[in-house]
Structures are given as C-alpha cells and as structure tokens.
C-alpha cells in the first residue's frame, strides 16, 4: 500500500539534513530558548533561590515551539515542492499522495522527538530536577499535539499559493495561536469571542494536555484534549485532501 514509503522517507531525511540552517533551526532554536528562559526564571523545582518564578511553563513553551517549527517546515516543504513541480512529477509515478504526505509527517515527528530529546538532555544538564515528570508520557503528549498542529499545517499548505508567502502566513497564524493557547494566561480570561476561537484551536488543547500530563494527571483524565486533538487531525486531514492542489 505504501510502496516506496521507507525509501522516500530515508531520501527526504538525507535531503533535509543537507540544509544545515534548517536542521540547526529545527533542533537548536527550541533548546536555546529553553536554556535562555531557564536561566532567567527559576526552573529548578528544588532550588527556590535561583530566580523569579516563571509566569508560564517554560518546558511546555519550548515543546510548543518545537511543534510549530515542525509545522512551518512542513508548510514550506510542501509549497516549495508544489511550486517547483516536484509534487506533480511524483504524482505521475505510482507513488500515492498519502505516501508522500505520510513520509514528510513521519520525518517531522522524528525530528520533533529528536528535538525533544535534546531539550531533555539540556534540562538534565542545566536545570537538574526541572524536568521531574513522567517523560515518556509527556513526550507522547508533545507528539500528539504536534501531529494535530501538523494537520492544520496541511490546510495552510493547501491554500497558500506560493512558497514565498507560506512561511510568514504560517507564522502569522501559528504564533497568535500560541498566545491564546492558555500557556501565558487562562483561556477563560479572554474576551468571549476569542475564547470560543481559542477552544477550537489545536494549540490550546495541546497546551491543556501537556500541562495536565506535566502536573501528573492521567491520559484518561485529559480525554477532552486528546479527543479534541484527534478531531482536529481528522477534520483538517479531510479538508486538506479536498482542497489540496498538487500543482
């Protein structure tokens, strides 16, 4: 069914690795932001004397930035491939569209996991005790959130006409979504109209899920966010398969 999936995935991974700035941005920037914020605020739960308490959860912000980075990268790749006729050329082969998208989503999830791994290593090195949570469970929450936000990326990639606008438009959509996600202030503090919008966004549910898991809650207790993230994924996938243009 997914003939060529692994070959395409492997070759696309190598192609991606050949662009040093892209790799550095994907893997490095969230870690750097994490370290800088960690030095500014008191991250270490054991050491109460190291600085002011952060007004938001720094590791969750870093995890969210990883997810958004993956989405922006996916949007850029798909629009560049479409503009350059690469998608069109691939479409004329037995390679199915699903395989092409799956390969890119798979690569983004792998790099998200790698980036998250670096974040954990940096946390262990610089702020011992700061990441005193159930890491596998938290990582799973990060990946589920990323997948859901990635599906929103498909829709953006489907409607944005050219690669030149894809990245700024993607950023203009995604960063405000982080702002109202509940990470910096409660969603209930937003104006009513904005609150309704915020509650339909995958970033909000990703933050809710990650915060819940961070604070030791179980997946079953977070079923609303999990369900919302899966729903966004299914809806966005359905929308993008309808509106997606291969050329």
């Amino acid at each position: 069914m997914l003939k060529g999936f692994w070959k395409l995935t492997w070759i696309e991974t190598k192609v991606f690795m050949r662009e040093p700035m892209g790799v550095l941005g994907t893997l490095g920037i969230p870690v750097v932001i994490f370290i800088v914020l960690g030095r500014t605020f008191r991250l270490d739960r054991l050491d109460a004397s190291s600085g002011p308490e952060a007004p938001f959860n720094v590791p969750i912000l870093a995890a969210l930035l990883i997810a958004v980075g993956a989405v922006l990268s996916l949007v850029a790749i798909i629009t560049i491939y479409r503009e350059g006729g690469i998608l069109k050329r691939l479409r004329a082969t037995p390679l199915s569209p699903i395989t092409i998208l799956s390969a890119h989503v798979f690569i983004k999830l792998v790099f998200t996991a790698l980036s998250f791994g670096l974040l954990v290593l940096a946390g262990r090195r610089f702020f011992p005790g700061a990441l005193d949570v159930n890491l596998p469970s938290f990582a799973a929450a990060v990946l589920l959130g990323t997948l859901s936000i990635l599906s929103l990326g498909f829709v953006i990639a489907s409607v944005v006409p050219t690669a030149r606008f894809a990245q700024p438009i993607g950023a203009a959509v995604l960063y405000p979504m982080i702002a109202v996600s509940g990470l910096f202030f409660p969603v209930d503090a937003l104006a009513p109209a904005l609150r309704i919008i915020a509650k339909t966004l995958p970033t909000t549910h990703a933050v809710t899920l990650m915060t819940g898991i961070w604070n030791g809650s179980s997946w079953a207790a977070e079923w609303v966010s999990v369900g919302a993230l899966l729903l966004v994924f299914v809806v966005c996938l359905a929308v993008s398969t309808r509106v997606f243009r291969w050329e």
Partner: protein
Amino acid sequence: MAHVSLGMPKVVISVSGLGKRYGATIAVADVSLEVHEGEIFGLIGPNGAGKTTTMECIEGLRTPDSGTIAVLGLDPRREAAALQQRIGVQHQEAQLQKRIKVWEAIDLWSALYSRSTEGEELLARLGLEAKRNAWFMTLSGGQKQRLFIALAMIHDPEVLFLDELTTGLDPQARRTIWELITGIRDRGKTVFLTTHLMEEAERLCDRVAIIDHGRLVEVGTPADLVARHCPERTVVVTSDEIGPGRFAGLPGLRTVTGDGSVYRLRGEGEAFVTQVINFVAKEGIRITGFRSEVPTLEDVFLKLTGHGIRD
C-alpha cells in the same frame, strides 16, 4: 529517419474528440489523433495552444471534459495504476528536490515500479555516470533533462511522453538530447513529444500534429506537410547585368521581385530549382550569386494558421 512499417501500423495511442476547458477558457477542442508503435510523434504549436493539456489528458494526469482516450488499450483515468507501469513521463520545466543526488533519484524511482532496468547502465547511457553523486541543483539544464529522461525510462516503459524537452537548452545540449530520443525510438519505443521548435519537430519527428488555439489543424510527416502545403520554391539570384523582365519564359515561374541586382524568383514544385539553373545556363546569364530557399514546417505553420509560431 523515416518510419518504415509493413502493413497496418499498430495504434498505441488513440484520442477521439478530446475536449478540455478551464473555466471559460477552452484549452482543447475536439482533438482526435492516433500514434503508431515505434514512431516519434510530435504535437507542435505555439505556447498556450493546448499541447500540454492534451498530453496530460493522455497521461491520465487530467480529466478531459469530453472525448475518449486509449493508451496501450487502457483508459488513462480508470486504469491509471496499470498504465503508470507502462508509460514514462517527463514534465515541462520540472524540478526535483534541490539537494537530492542523481543516484538517489534513480534509486527512489526504481523502488516505485514493479519492474526496473539497471539504473547505473541507464545513467551511463545518458552520460550521467560522472554526476551520480551530484546534487540536482548543481546540474546544468541539459543534465537535468537527461536525468528526467532517465527517470521516465527507469521502468522500461513502452511509451515515453516528453513535454518541451529541450526548451531553454543550448544547441549542443539539444542535439545530444535529439540523438538520445532517436536512439530510444530505434530500440522500439514509442515517443510522444510536444515542442514549439519547428526545427526540432522537423529533425526528430516521424509524424507531427499541428495544434493551434486548442484545435488540431493538420497531421502528417514533416516532408508530406511541406509538400502538400508549401509546394512553392524560392530561388534568389544575384546578377548586375539584367532586369526582372529577363526571366520571362522561365518554366514554372510565378513571380519575380527584386531591384537592381538581387531577384527573388518564386515558382511551383521541387523541379523549379532545376528549371532556374537550366534557364540561366541556356540564356547565358552571368550571375554572381545563387541560393534556393526550401520551405520548412515553420512556413507550413504560418500558412495553415495565419500567424507565426512565436506570435
């Protein structure tokens, strides 16, 4: 160069009444044609004439609004999966991932088809073996096109579709590609190509179809089309001793234009050039220059459509 066949040629592509519109724009209207096994068939016309749309409908990449298409007996839309295994495709101005290596592209493409030829041998045949580790973005225009030919041929297809293959290439790279294409034909493959270069069509194609504003104007061998539509020949003679009236009595002569020394003699049929030579010799006219102009597909195009190919 000419295609030789005994008996009825086998029809590989058959298109009948093909129509396709984009919104209010009619891209292709009522196009019908047949392509025979083992020939190079060229769809020629200016940019925007409907060449690519016609080709992409035949490849199964677009759904026609009307008409029927059969390629190797298959319906390009309903039997796309089966057809993809038997045809090879190259798109106009196609690109690959900037940093994909030549051999990686070959490797990926061979993994997609149920049968594949020896990739390394294919690269050697297309003169790309020295570039196997080069990134796509570092290849020259001619090398990129040769790679696309390689990708189109990786599964040893029976029919090859080539869309504006040599556009933007320098004359030498163009010639190399022409040799490759005739080589492919000589190994028994059928080639369907589009071009807006009349010289290319004339040199490469066994048969051509002229398309203009989405409609098929004429089909035939290049020589046949020229003989049918542009039978007149022009001979340009330079002589200081005579006036235009001196050519009265020249057999086949239609018009004479020219001033003091250079005369353009226009006449009917291929024999006209010989007739001018004989006439000049018999009359003892001293000439200092002699040149004959043979009509080309470009002239046929101009005559049939009323405008030039680059208008």
